């Protein structure tokens, strides 16, 4: 990746400064914030930003809109949890194993399914995720391991046990998911500016033209599927360790899959910051409405999700990202004119000093 020439492109400078400031704020935040609920909201915001970013590696970069990504989250969550409950293996290791398992499944499923274009692919992903969910729901025990079906798995409480991925306070969870989010964002940015990134964008925009230029579309899509599955699977483990309870609905359900789609679309598919923006915008709405309106109005936040999605698709198809980018112009111009004014003041001061020196 080439280093950006800041003088040539002030917009890039602005972007880098903004991101650096936000990351710094995120890192420092827990030092000043004690409110547990606020921390929880932020953890969930980062979590869904992470998951949506992982989804976006396949959907936004390769153009295959999966509506069944919960399958990979569930695979990661169940594997790390079962490894822990049955054999006491640390969920940190379980996270890696679950991530790899999700990668394998993602590639195996992708191989026949990427032939399908557009909505056909989306439908098949729904079916796959539902098949997995239905299987786990109706299975109490498999190969001697307790799955507990629809009842789900409760993680044994170990208190403050960092090597077992459990903490007393929310703060370590906050930093863990923040690091994960930065990792997936970095990978996404690196891929986007690399050869696979160019190839994936080409496939997404026009697969036939890409193949006529020597791009092996099937292979590239599997590459994207592997990356996406890996990160999504690891996210499932984080969820399990934070919430301490998993069941087929929460980690394999269509609600989770749809959530990732909606957040990414609202924020902006195909960009690295899009899904993050989407989560920052939508997840707090969800958590807050859940708090104030309770379980009697369980779907209230979804009304907002649906409404925002409709508005974004109709009027801002590139997502909130598009709106943010239109602010870049005015801000860089303001900055440039402010510096210009500063230089004018300096040169006036300098002229005044010269004059007074001359008079002496």
């Amino acid at each position: 990746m080439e280093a950006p020439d800041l003088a040539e492109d002030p917009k890039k400078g602005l972007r880098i400064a903004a991101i650096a400031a936000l990351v710094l704020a995120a890192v420092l935040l827990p030092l000043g914030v004690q409110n547990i609920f606020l921390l929880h909201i932020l953890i969930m915001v980062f979590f869904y930003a992470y998951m949506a970013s992982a989804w976006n590696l396949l959907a936004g970069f390769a153009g295959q809109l999966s509506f069944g990504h919960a399958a990979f989250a569930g695979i990661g969550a169940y594997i790390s949890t079962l490894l822990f409950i049955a054999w006491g293996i640390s969920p940190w290791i379980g996270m890696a194993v679950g991530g790899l398992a999700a990668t394998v499944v993602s590639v195996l499923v992708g191989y026949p399914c990427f032939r399908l274009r557009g909505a056909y692919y989306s439908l098949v992903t729904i079916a796959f995720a539902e098949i997995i969910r239905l299987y786990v729901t109706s299975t109490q025990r498999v190969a001697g391991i307790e799955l507990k079906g629809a009842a789900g798995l409760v993680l044994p409480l170990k208190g403050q046990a960092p090597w077992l991925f459990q903490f007393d306070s929310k703060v370590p969870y906050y930093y863990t998911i923040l690091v994960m989010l930065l990792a997936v964002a970095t990978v996404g940015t690196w891929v986007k500016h690399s050869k696979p990134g160019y190839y994936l964008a080409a496939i997404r925009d026009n697969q036939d033209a890409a193949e006529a230029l020597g791009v092996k579309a099937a292979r590239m899509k599997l590459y994207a599927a592997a990356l996406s599955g890996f990160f999504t699977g690891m996210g499932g483990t984080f969820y399990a360790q934070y919430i301490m309870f998993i069941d087929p609905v929460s980690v394999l359900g269509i609600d989770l899959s749809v959530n990732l789609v909606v957040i990414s679309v609202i924020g902006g598919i195909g960009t690295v910051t899009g899904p993050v923006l989407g989560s920052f915008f939508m997840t707090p709405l969800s958590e807050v409405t859940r708090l104030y309106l309770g379980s009697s109005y369980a779907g209230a936040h979804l009304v907002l999700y649906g409404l925002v999605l409709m508005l974004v698709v109709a009027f801002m198809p590139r997502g909130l990202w598009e709106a943010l980018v239109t602010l870049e112009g005015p801000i860089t111009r303001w900055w440039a004119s402010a510096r210009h004014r500063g230089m004018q003041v300096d040169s006036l001061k300098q002229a005044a000093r010269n004059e007074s020196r001359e008079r002496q």
Partner: protein
Amino acid sequence: MLLQNVVTGLLMGSVYGLVAFGLSLLFGVMKIVNFAHGAVLMIGMYVVVSLTGLVGFDPYLSAAIGTPMLFVIGYLLGLSVEPILMRERSTGPISVLLWTLGFSLFAINIVLIIFGADYRVVESFVSGKTLELAGVIISLPRLGAAIVAVVTFVGLYLLLTRTDVGKAMRATSQDMEAARMLGIDERKMCRMAFAISSATTAVAAGVLVPFYYVSPTVGDVFQLKSFVIVVLGGIGTISGCLLGGLIVGLVESLGAQYLNATYAQMVVFLVFVVILLVRPMGLLGKERE
């Protein structure tokens, strides 16, 4: 026992087929995957429930009133969707899919807030009554539903083959470019497809209410089944919807009897996946080169 299951399955299957028709029409004519299909069914059912509750009509009468209402709602949906579809040739259908997803989330949860999550049950003049034929007990509301479904299919067949609108739709579904060159207005096709789709779904809603529990999420399961039926039977064919519906109805009925209900659902999805991968044009559809 077996005959009982077969009959129940076929009766329910014909209604499934009718529900699936709306989805099939939209995909066939406008290449739109309507993720709000279940929501439209749900709206239809709540319209019937409300009219019956407010005015005291028999649900079948409410359905007769509700169908034109849903026609209008469908027309408005088509109107909203049309600029999104026309915006960019290549990404139009996916954007519409996402928009209908948004509408679905919005509608289902608004209904949830207004009406609550409780199941509604509505009685009609045939509720609870049964008929016995050759040792098989047939529930009258289900029989009535199946009859109405078949009659509606006949009506749809006439609509698609004898009316100008119907012929225009068939032309558009075969080749949109050619249809455009013949002077067929795509935007009108979009609105009419949505309108007819919603009206048909309203009919299905009307005949389901007398024997099916109504809740805000009632549409979800019908939507998934509709996708399976459309893929199974082939897109854009009436006979395909009916055949696909009957198959799904049978599998469901027999599966619930001889297998775990969850496993029966799994089987349906597995068949769905296999068909999509092996023969995406469905059992009766035509190969597209």
